[in-house]
């Protein structure tokens, strides 16, 4: 599809690519210096109202999503498409080229070559050479014209497409990004322990998305290192659909949960004044969790028990232990100190009941749906593969001309590689020596 039209030439040119790359690289700096996504008032307070207005006109406060920046990215993509359509046919022709079309004169003129004389007749030489080539993985084809026989073999002709693999990988990544931004969302939901949520508030808008299922936070916990730094945040989540529990999983930072294409990431938490009290009847195995405000009485009528949290000790924001008041069948109440979030037998009740008291939290979940992410990953994989092919693999070709002289044969071995010639020459020399000695 060669085209002489000047618009075509403009969009197929490497000069345009250099210009676009330069513009993207330099304009990208702006958003790393001027903080992004602040309010208009914030820019006024920092830069004055004139500058803030200019920023607003140029979309500087959200420059990576601005019309002009996205246009630059599209221009790069368009440039790539046209450039590839322009150049690929010629490359493909080289990939498919039949080496046997090369005549004996050209074979003798190649820069990498070795020639020798052999006493045996041409036909036996051709056969011997074919076998040796095969041993080294060179599959040869053959053509005979008069007294000349030409053998041709090549390796890695497809590697000429390496650059195009890299270029298409960029287009695939762009495609993934577009799919993600059209068909996906990013939002946040805060789920208090023991409760379930089925809606998510999206970032950057007031929109609410219905999940189509519920996510319940069974419990949330923070683990600390000895020096007081946070070691891990963990939420136990249950997914429910139509009120039915489907499955339960723990999530941590770097270890999210995905259901129906929607992924929940551990992102933040909120501490409440309330407590989550879990009571277990060890005889029957029955267990139930309650949210209990401080110094409020809770009933569990089926077990005929009543309890409440009457005191608590805290270290900073975190509760370390709490004191429970507990009575059964309206008998004498007992009180006991319990460590936070440790299932403990209650002394006064012959270990029939075990209780876990913990401070109540809400877990903050980042919620994302991105149907384009696999395209992006495929593109990334293809890019690395393509870069390897483009830089480290080469198209290597060899020709062997065997000329029947009547008394024996004249043999010329020649070859070429489109990249890494020193590497090819080592292979070539080894092959030549073996052929010559045979």
């Amino acid at each position, binding site marked *: 599809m060669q085209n002489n039209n000047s618009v075509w030439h403009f969009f197929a040119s490497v000069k345009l690519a250099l210009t676009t790359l330069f513009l993207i690289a330099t304009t990208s700096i702006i958003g*790393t210096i001027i903080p992004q996504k602040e309010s208009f008032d914030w820019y006024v307070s920092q830069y004055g109202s004139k500058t803030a207005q200019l920023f607003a006109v140029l979309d500087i406060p959200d420059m990576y999503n601005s019309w002009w920046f996205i246009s630059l990215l599209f221009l790069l993509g368009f440039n790539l498409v046209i450039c590839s359509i322009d150049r690929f046919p010629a490359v493909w022709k080289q990939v498919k080229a039949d080496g046997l079309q090369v005549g004996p004169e050209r074979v003798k003129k190649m820069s990498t070559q070795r020639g020798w004389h052999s006493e045996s007749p041409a036909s036996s030489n051709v056969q011997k050479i074919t076998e040796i080539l095969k041993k080294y993985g060179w599959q040869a084809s053959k053509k005979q014209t008069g007294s000349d026989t030409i053998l041709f073999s090549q390796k890695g002709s497809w590697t000429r497409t390496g650059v195009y693999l890299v270029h298409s990988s960029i287009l695939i990544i762009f495609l993934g990004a577009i799919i993600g931004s059209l068909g996906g969302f990013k939002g946040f939901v805060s789920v208090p322990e023991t409760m379930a949520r089925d809606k998510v508030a999206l970032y950057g808008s007031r929109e609410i998305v219905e999940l189509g299922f519920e996510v319940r936070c069974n419990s949330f916990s923070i683990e600390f290192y000895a020096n007081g730094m946070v070691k891990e945040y963990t939420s136990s989540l249950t997914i429910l659909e139509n009120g039915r529990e489907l499955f339960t999983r723990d999530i941590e930072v770097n270890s999210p949960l995905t259901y129906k294409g929607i992924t929940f990431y551990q992102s933040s938490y909120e501490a409440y004044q309330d407590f989550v009290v879990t009571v277990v009847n060890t005889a029957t195995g029955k267990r139930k969790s309650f949210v209990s405000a401080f110094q409020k009485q809770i009933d569990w009528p089926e077990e005929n028990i009543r309890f409440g949290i009457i005191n608590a000790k805290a270290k900073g924001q975190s509760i370390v232990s709490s004191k429970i008041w507990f009575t059964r069948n309206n008998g004498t109440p007992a009180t006991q100190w319990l460590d936070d979030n440790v299932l403990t037998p209650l002394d006064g009740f012959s270990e029939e009941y075990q209780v876990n008291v913990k401070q109540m939290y809400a877990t903050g979940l980042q919620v994302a749906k991105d149907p384009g992410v696999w395209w992006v990953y495929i593109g990334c994989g293809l890019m690395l593969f393509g870069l390897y092919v483009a830089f480290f693999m080469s198209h290597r070709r060899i020709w062997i001309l065997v000329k029947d002289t009547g008394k024996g044969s004249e043999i010329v071995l020649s070859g070429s590689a489109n990249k890494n010639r020193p590497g090819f020459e080592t292979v070539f020399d080894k092959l030549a020596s073996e052929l010559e000695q045979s």
Partner: protein
Amino acid sequence: MDSSQLLGITTFTFLFASFLYISALVFRAETIGKVASGFTVVALFILTLGLGLRWIESYKLGIGHAPLTNMYESVVFFAWTIIIFYLGIEWKFKTRTIGAFALPIAFLAMAYASFAPLNRGINPLVPALQSNWLLAHVVTCFVGYAAFAIAAALGIMYLGKTSFGAGAREAQTKELLPPVSVLEDITHKTMIFGFIWLSAGIITGAIWANSAWGTYWSWDPKETWSLITWFVYAFTLHARYTRGIKGKTIAWLSIVGFIAVIFTYYGVNFLLAGLHSYGSG
């Protein structure tokens, strides 16, 4: 003997080897060059031991993780990759002159790590950093950075060599600096090598971000600067396909690219705010 002592010894060995490589270049003395290589190999060995020991020490503290998690450790690792990469080039291209540029870079990195006001402690990892992608991300990025450092050193050599006047031409034949065409070739190959690793570094970083936050790309300053760096090298690789852009421009671009690397790695942490928590420590 603990890891910090080993790293201290390495710093001074790098300094000594730098002097040796420079003297070898100035006095054109092959023997000094060989001694310089010897010291560099020894220093690399000690540095490797030091890094390994630091890794073991972190396990003894009960917070085992690879020594790649704060500014101090990453600078040391940078010096380590630079030396490995340089020795690879010395061995492959049979030239020691690049050492006069590479060793000082490694020494400066080690000296910065040892003397700048950085947190040199072995600290536990906050939840976001507890990921196998951390290792993949840091290693791939730093291999790329090391290659780019060498490419910039080669670019400087190229510019130095081509700006000697005509009078110096005779002297050049004897000179230890490799011929211009060789310099150009190694610069190009080194940049390609770095480009692949930087691509892998950006990709592993994106995958990690996606597993931690659900966004593979959020245009935070560190990400953006790594992409700017990547574009600089993409630009450089394509410049060859345009007439008029020759060795000298490429040499300058190798230096511009490395400035972008330094800004990505260092400037962003100290001059701009972002997700990457490294610098503050």
